């Protein structure tokens, strides 16, 4: 049961009879009592006349997924199964970070009919946003008292990572295409593949001339130079394993974005790019357990499966177990692969496990360690405003030195290191992938 402002106003109007009949004290008390009884009686009549809010059917109209930062429309269909008109207000019990607006919707449903109440959802946080119930407040004809009931009506909306870094995708795809096809590749690496033979044009690398083919072709072809060069295309069907660290260090916010979100952005861009590059991508989110795993997906399905499985992953407050990562990678592929570790390698203390596990990985794979750097540290290192900021600058300098020592150690162990601020890490990692592909080191 709930009362309305109208009932409060009705009670307040009681001042008039109390004053009018208040010439004597008993008269005033009688007027007061009569008015209270009158108001409450009206309220009870109203309550009895209100339609039963339990006599409804609730259905939900919801999209299953939405990208973070976007708005979707949701709806609740209320069917009035009673024989009275249902009149009142509905509240949907969304979690606050689902960003449901408006939070309360008025409705007026004749007997036996149904209405859809729509609202907009603008989630403010990644993950699955849920609602467990709707609350109906059924008002009486006078609008004084209402019946209220909470009805079980679960609903869920999966909020996907925003993938802001997709704006870098077209330019990187263009770079990738330049590598592809007829362009002779200057450096012939282990992984580059023979594509075709064609005639030499000025500017081609003389080392790519295929003398045997030249000897064969010059006998029949006389109008051209007759010198044949081999063309190469970037290797294809390589494996890229992206390992995202979801341990405690990934919870740290850098430039108001948790490390793990930056890692997701980088992983999504790299996956989109590598998929176009013809490679096979596997994604693993790991701390001590596998939190998410996408294996063997291709094309449009890959990104869709990635965002869906990454959506609900949150940082765990435990240390990542790097010794188990090698086994996890081995479980995905036995072939040589590009293993991208998205983690925090900024202090020797927190990176000891990573550095200890690196040799096992670099022995059989190409390893890239991608780390977010804090632009605030760089800023602090240049501050000299007062004594306090000089000490802060010293501490920042020490942090930078630590990070560079860890990076040097990782390089010494055979891994490649990519460090960049949050906004620049995804394109930097994509560029590193393109460079590796161009040099045939995959």
């Amino acid at each position, binding site marked *: 049961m*709930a*009362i*309305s*402002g109208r*009932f*409060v106003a009705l*009670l*307040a109007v009681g*001042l008039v009879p*109390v*004053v009018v*009949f*208040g*010439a*004597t*004290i008993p*008269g*005033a008390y009688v*007027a*007061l009592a009569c*008015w*209270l009884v009158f108001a409450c009686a009206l309220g009870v009549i109203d309550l009895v006349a209100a339609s039963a809010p339990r006599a409804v059917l609730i259905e939900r109209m919801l999209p299953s997924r939405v990208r973070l930062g976007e708005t979707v429309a949701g709806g609740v269909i209320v069917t009035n199964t009673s024989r009275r008109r249902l009149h009142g207000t509905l*509240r949907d*019990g969304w*979690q*606050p*970070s689902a960003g449901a607006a408006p939070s309360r919707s008025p409705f007026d449903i004749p007997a036996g009919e149904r209405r859809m109440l729509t609202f907009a959802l603008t989630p403010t*946080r990644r993950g699955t946003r849920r609602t467990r*119930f*709707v*609350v109906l407040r059924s008002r009486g004809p006078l609008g004084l008292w209402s019946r*209220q009931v*909470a009805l079980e009506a679960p609903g869920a909306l999966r909020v996907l990572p925003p993938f802001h870094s997709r704006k870098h995708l077209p330019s990187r795809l263009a770079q990738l295409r330049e590598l592809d096809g007829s362009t002779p590749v200057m450096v012939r690496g282990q992984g580059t593949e023979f594509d075709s033979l064609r005639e030499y044009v000025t500017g081609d690398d003389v080392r790519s001339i295929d003398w045997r083919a030249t000897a064969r072709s010059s006998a029949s072809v006389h109008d051209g130079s007759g010198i044949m060069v081999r063309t190469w295309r970037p290797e294809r069907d390589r494996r890229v394993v992206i390992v995202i660290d979801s341990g405690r260090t990934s*919870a*740290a*916010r*850098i430039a108001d974005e*948790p490390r793990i979100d930056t890692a997701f952005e980088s992983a999504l861009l790299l996956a989109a790019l590598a998929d176009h590059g013809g490679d096979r991508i596997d994604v693993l989110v790991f701390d001590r357990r596998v939190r998410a795993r996408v294996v063997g997906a291709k094309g449009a399905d890959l990104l869709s499966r990635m965002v869906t499985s990454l959506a609900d992953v*949150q940082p765990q*407050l435990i240390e990542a177990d790097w010794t188990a990562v090698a086994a996890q990678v081995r479980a995905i592929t036995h072939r040589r692969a590009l293993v991208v570790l998205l983690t925090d390698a900024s202090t020797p203390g927190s990176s000891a496990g990573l550095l200890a596990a690196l040799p096992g990985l670099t022995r059989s794979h190409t390893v890239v360690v991608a780390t977010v750097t*804090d632009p605030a*540290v760089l800023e*602090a*290192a240049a501050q*000299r405003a*007062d*004594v*306090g900021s*000089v*000490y*802060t*600058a*010293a*501490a*920042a*300098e*020490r*942090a*930078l*030195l630590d990070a560079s020592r860890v990076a040097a150690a990782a390089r010494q162990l055979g891994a490649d290191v990519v460090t960049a601020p949050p906004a620049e890490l995804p394109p930097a990692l994509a560029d590193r992938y393109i460079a590796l592909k161009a040099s045939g080191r995959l």
Partner: protein
Amino acid sequence: MLVAVLVVGVAIALAVQLSLATSSTDPMGANNPGQQGGQALARVLQQHGVDVRTASTLQEARRAASIPDDTTVMLSDPNGLLDAAQLQSVLRLGSDVVAVGPGFQTLSAIAPDIHQAGRATATTSDRPSCSLVVAQDAGRLSGVRQAYRTSGGATPCFRVGSTFALAQTINAGDSVTVVGSQLFDNANIGLAGNAALAVGLLGGDSTLVWYLPSQADVQASGPPTLAEITPGWLTPAILLLIAVVVAAAVWSGRRFGPLVVEDLPVVVRAGETMHGRARLYRRAAARTHALDALRLGALHRIGALCGLPPSAHVDQIVAAAAALTERPVHQVRDLLLDETPATDAALRASASALRDLEDDVRRAVAGERPGGSSAPLH
């Protein structure tokens, strides 16, 4: 001797104590022995066999005046405590009423024909010109202060200038006599014929009610109390308003369904370790340590700017930096290596100089002239 003085002193003290206990300080009080008192007159009347009954309230006066026909009432109300109705009932107490020094309101209530005439022009009156027997017996009066004037059927007596020291009005056999206030007090009773007049006026009946009105006679009147002016509906109206407030609280306080629970992520700021370490440096005053951290960073960057390998010796970097910025080698070496800051100010100066050196090297490498900022090194 000493004992005698002591005994006399104690006796005096006792006598004073006793007299204070039994005497009063009211003007015209029957047991007030002071200058303004009336004890002398009261005692004399008692000795003449008059039953002097003192009263301080109207009720006491009523009780004392048991036989109205044989009672004289002496009324002295200098403060005007009685209202008109009470004064009318005083008039009914006895056959004769003597008002000593009545105020304006008292006078207009008990004897409307007699009027105040202000201060007497002389203290001694002429011989009585009226037909009152007691006045004729008294002869002249002395110590007259207040004067009266009459109109209508009132009888004036004892002329003082153009006014009179005494006035009497008779109605239905009862007389009301008005005299000035100080005429009969202890100081003036012995002058001229004052005593004779007083005894004549007051000793006419066997009972004399000596009535001095007190605060107890004042009718309790004033502005009405809060309860009297409060309208009857006020308390019910307040109760109704309380009910309205309670209803409003229920209206806005009623929750629209259960609370929604949501687990929110922990916010971990990445810079916390850095700031913590900075505070540790500062608390421990680890200036050399802090400066060394800054120097290491600067050496790395300057070495990279000068194109030296990461494994380059520090002396090579110092030499390269000095050559690029055209500074003395020992100065650059002091800055990058040897100097030990003793105070926080020195630390800050060194840190700033370090940054300037780095900027100069960067500018020199970029092809500009060094010392653009021309910051002093020490």
